[in-house]
């Protein structure tokens, strides 16, 4: 293949889904998978019903309640009263439309971006959308996946397509071995800190390089999950042997008779050597420490050994103002070491870090120890399947014996749409994805970190270097 025709992973999937070229970089794209949750699903389904339009391909749509349902043990769809209408609406409208729904208590229920890959619904080379910005998570198995709003969601329900403008392509290569206590979460937080929260705006990002090739699929899902925090709608990793092994035997993955044929197709998706990218970045992984956010944007990150930055390090006056506001909101002083900052809450969960490997990482730190007296600590598994698998390994008992609450699957305190909030002024270490003002509740102060770092903070009652626990 010549340099002129070398194609990137992104382009191979995009080009393969163009139904009609609309000109000016726009295309009518086929959408292979559309995932619905209780917050964005009901309005999209209802708008179609109101217009009297049928769903184009209900068999390609999958729904599960995750955002507004309670995570309290023994919960029902009505435990969180304000969310009961959304839960009931998703169920009723899905049933009317012939959309498969995984309800509370069933395998398949869970955070929509945990459910998709876990069931093999999301596959390499598929186009995947959901009314949720963290749909980029699904790029971890080599899908072209991105979040959309409810209008675009209605468009997909009615036509199984989207009118989209092709983004630019960025490749980020990771090379080197992860240091002790360093996880994919630390890598992506580090990258966002280095490039800034809008560096990916207008781009689809491919993560590549030797570090990625060795990384397990759940780590790749975490990495891709935070692409939107870098500004990119799309983050993806080329599928490889690890991907194929991960998918084999999953409920909706290709059945055995088709699997080899599917794998042959998926192998061809990797970016060609000659593929060109509009922007390329390289990260030497060896130099990345356990990383944590100090402010109210995911770009406001530091290494765990570092101090809260001085305003003089801000690159411009708007950023200086933003840093000042962030310091004030977070109740921190420039120059103070981040380690040792007292913590009130710990949340282990979210589409970023709630999979079995995340819970194992946290449990390894927690085993045989106790949560500090002042700390309220929760574990919210990402899905019913994760919950059952973790319980089969006894992870739930590791957490509960230490004083953690072991809860039911859903988004919970990451987005606080179900009323589960960090109280005003309280400081939380959270494995989630957004440290925005008020994200975890009005006045809540969020530090984003890995599951192991969150576990360490729960035990010591302070932000702690996981390498010293």
């Amino acid at each position, binding site marked *: 293949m010549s340099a002129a025709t070398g194609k990137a992973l992104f382009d191979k999937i995009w080009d393969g889904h163009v139904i009609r070229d609309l000109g000016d970089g726009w295309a009518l794209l086929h959408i292979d998978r559309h995932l619905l949750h209780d917050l964005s699903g009901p309005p999209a389904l209802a708008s179609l019903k109101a217009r009297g339009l049928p769903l184009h391909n209900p068999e390609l749509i999958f729904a599960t309640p995750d955002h507004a349902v309670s995570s309290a043990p023994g919960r029902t769809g009505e435990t969180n009263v304000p969310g009961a209408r*959304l839960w009931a609406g998703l169920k009723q409208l899905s049933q009317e439309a012939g959309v498969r729904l995984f309800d509370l208590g069933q395998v398949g229920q869970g955070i929509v971006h945990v459910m998709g890959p876990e069931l093999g619904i999301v596959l390499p*080379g598929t186009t995947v959308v959901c009314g949720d910005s963290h749909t980029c998570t699904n790029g971890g198995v080599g899908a072209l996946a991105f979040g959309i709003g409810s209008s675009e969601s209605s468009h997909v329900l009615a*036509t199984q397509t989207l009118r989209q403008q092709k983004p630019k392509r960025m490749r980020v290569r990771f090379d080197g071995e992860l240091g002790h206590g360093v996880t994919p979460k630390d890598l992506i937080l580090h990258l966002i800190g280095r490039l800034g929260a809008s560096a990916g705006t207008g781009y689809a990002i491919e993560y590549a390089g030797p570090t990625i090739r060795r990384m397990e699929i759940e780590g790749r899902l975490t990495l891709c999950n935070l692409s939107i925090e870098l500004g990119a709608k799309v983050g993806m990793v080329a599928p490889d042997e690890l991907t194929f092994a991960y998918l084999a035997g999953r409920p909706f993955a290709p059945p055995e008779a088709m699997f080899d044929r599917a794998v042959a197709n998926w192998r061809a998706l990797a970016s060609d050597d000659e593929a060109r990218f509009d922007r390329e970045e390289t990260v030497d992984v060896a130099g990345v420490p356990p990383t944590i956010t100090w402010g109210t944007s995911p770009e406001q990150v530091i290494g765990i050994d570092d101090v809260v930055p001085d305003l003089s390090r801000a690159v411009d006056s708007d950023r200086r103002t933003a840093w000042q506001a962030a310091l004030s909101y977070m109740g921190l002083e420039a120059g103070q070491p981040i380690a040792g900052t007292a913590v009130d809450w710990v949340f282990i969960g979210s589409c970023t870090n709630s999979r079995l490997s995340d819970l194992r990482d946290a449990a390894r730190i927690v085993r045989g120890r106790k949560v500090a007296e002042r700390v309220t600590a929760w574990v919210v598994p990402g899905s019913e399947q994760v919950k059952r698998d973790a319980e089969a390994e006894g992870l739930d008992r590791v957490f509960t014996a230490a004083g953690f609450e072991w809860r039911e699957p859903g988004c919970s305190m990451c987005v606080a749409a179900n009323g589960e909030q960090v109280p005003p002024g309280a400081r939380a270490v959270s494995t989630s994805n957004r440290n925005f003002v008020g994200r975890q509740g009005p006045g809540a102060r969020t530090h984003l970190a890995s599951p192991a770092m969150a576990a360490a903070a729960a035990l010591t009652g302070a932000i702690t270097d996981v390498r010293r626990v």
Partner: protein
Amino acid sequence: MQPFNRLTGPVACLPQPNIDTDVIIRIERLAAGDRTALGTYAFEALRYRSDGTENPVFPLNRPEFRGAPILVAGANFGCGSSREGAVWALMALGLRCVIAPSFGDIFYNNCFQNGLLPIVLAEPLVIAIADLAIGGAPLTIDLERRTLAWSDAPPLRFEIDEMRRQSLLTGLDPIELTLRDAAAIAAWQAGDRTDRPWVWNLDRPGTGRLTRSGNPR
């Protein structure tokens, strides 16, 4: 979708970068489902003090900018969550146009689905507009001509993708537009069922509900 053609009004300024959609509208306000109340809750964390009274220094609370239809914002405005309610909340507050050096990609798309015009301008121009907006002088935005102008100054041209400009000017429904391609969609799907049968092979007994009462295409 509300078409957009021409607009004149004062310009409020919110210069800090990375204003996210959680800050524009909290998720519980959307979960509550009352779309008409969203204007009251837009920018809640910035607009009100902890006792619930208005924060007098928040730009849109100042008398000269109350109800301003244009907002000048910092880089990466609307980053974060895909919630389209962020656009609904801004429009419920009376905004029809946001000018910024850059926008969150999903928010940017959502603007066009509803008739809110997002204009991308180089940072120095955004700052210049913010400077001229002090005092509440009206700015005119003309999408047909792709210009913005203060009453006594020569107009400044802005760039916007032609497809997006046309969709805002006409207010055409994209679903109707796409359904005109029904035959092409059907043909693509027929071919894909042969090329990638595993994408379409989804009947799994015992996994979820398999009866379909919906439209059997």
